[in-house]
């Protein structure tokens, strides 16, 4: 889902960059002072986990594949604001050091993966966690990555390189990630469950636990 340079019109890239800067500034202000020393290492682990997982491309035969993005995963484990900053760090390292995703379009890639996927994923998780937390994590990963892909598709579909074929791009990317997102959801749910079993105390208070309390 990493957009390379040349794919987006400059105006689209600029609007996305401004939106990302505003969203990350908001996230940093919400997180500032609320992060405990005990949870700071978790931020490092989640960021590295997402970086490493994104390197593992799923080798699905048939021409359409993807890799784990992890926006919803970060949001559930870290909370949405810290999750956004975490994924933005990963996306920036990928672009600057590895040329994965363009420089001019970095704001768009941050917007899709670190803002849209994170906050949509978290909203889905919050809405469903009261019924079943693992199912909520699955749905968050699934719909979060689909939302991020749709956001990218709209940006691309509004750009001249894609001949302004908005409908075509939205259809290909939306359906593609709706199907591939099932794997994202499954990984999100399985790893979430493993973390809950191993160290429930490192997680932010979940809606379910808040209700029970």
């Amino acid at each position, binding site marked *: *889902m990493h957009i*390379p*340079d*040349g794919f987006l019109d400059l105006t689209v890239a600029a609007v996305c960059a401004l939106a990302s800067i505003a969203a990350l500034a908001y996230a940093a202000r919400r*997180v*500032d*002072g*609320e*992060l*405990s*020393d005990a949870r*700071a*290492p978790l931020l*490092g*682990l*989640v*960021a*590295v*986990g997402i*970086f*490493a997982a994104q*390197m*593992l*491309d799923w*080798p699905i*035969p*048939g*021409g*359409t*594949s*993807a890799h784990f993005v992890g926006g919803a995963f970060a949001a559930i484990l870290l909370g949405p604001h810290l999750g956004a*900053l975490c994924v933005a*760090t*990963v996306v920036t*390292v*990928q*672009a*600057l*050091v*590895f*040329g*994965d995703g*363009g*420089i*001019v379009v970095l704001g768009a890639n941050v917007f899709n993966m670190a803002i849209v996927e994170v906050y949509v994923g978290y909203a889905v998780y919050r809405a469903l966690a009261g019924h079943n937390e693992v199912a909520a994590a699955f749905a968050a990963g699934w719909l979060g990555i689909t939302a991020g*892909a749709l956001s990218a*598709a709209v940006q*691309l579909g509004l750009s001249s*390189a*894609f*001949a302004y*074929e908005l409908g*075509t*791009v939205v259809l*290909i*990317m939306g*359906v*593609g990630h709706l199907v591939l997102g099932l794997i994202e959801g499954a990984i999100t749910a399985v790893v979430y469950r493993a973390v809950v079993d191993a*160290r429930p105390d*490192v997680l932010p208070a979940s809606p379910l636990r808040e209700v029970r309390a």
Partner: protein
Amino acid sequence: MSPLDHPWFRTGLAILLVMVLLAPAFAWAAGQVGYAEPLENAAETTGATDAAETLNPGLMPDYGVPGLGAAPGTLVSALVGTALTLVLAMGMGRVLAD
């Protein structure tokens, strides 16, 4: 207290090391099946593929190391990327926790 004093942090790092070691195998397998994301399929359908340009190849272009073979290059990239991301994220965590 160092993060390494937390057993869960050490466990997490061990799992990450396994993922890093797996990276070359996944990269090879992705190449075998002709890995293409929906974004690339959409670019091909709309004729946008040739519009892609590389303004910044990065120090390790496409998760490889110039002059090094594919598998060792991927492995070195994975190690450098995970170490760099860990340092940056934990540094950010320190700043935000203060």
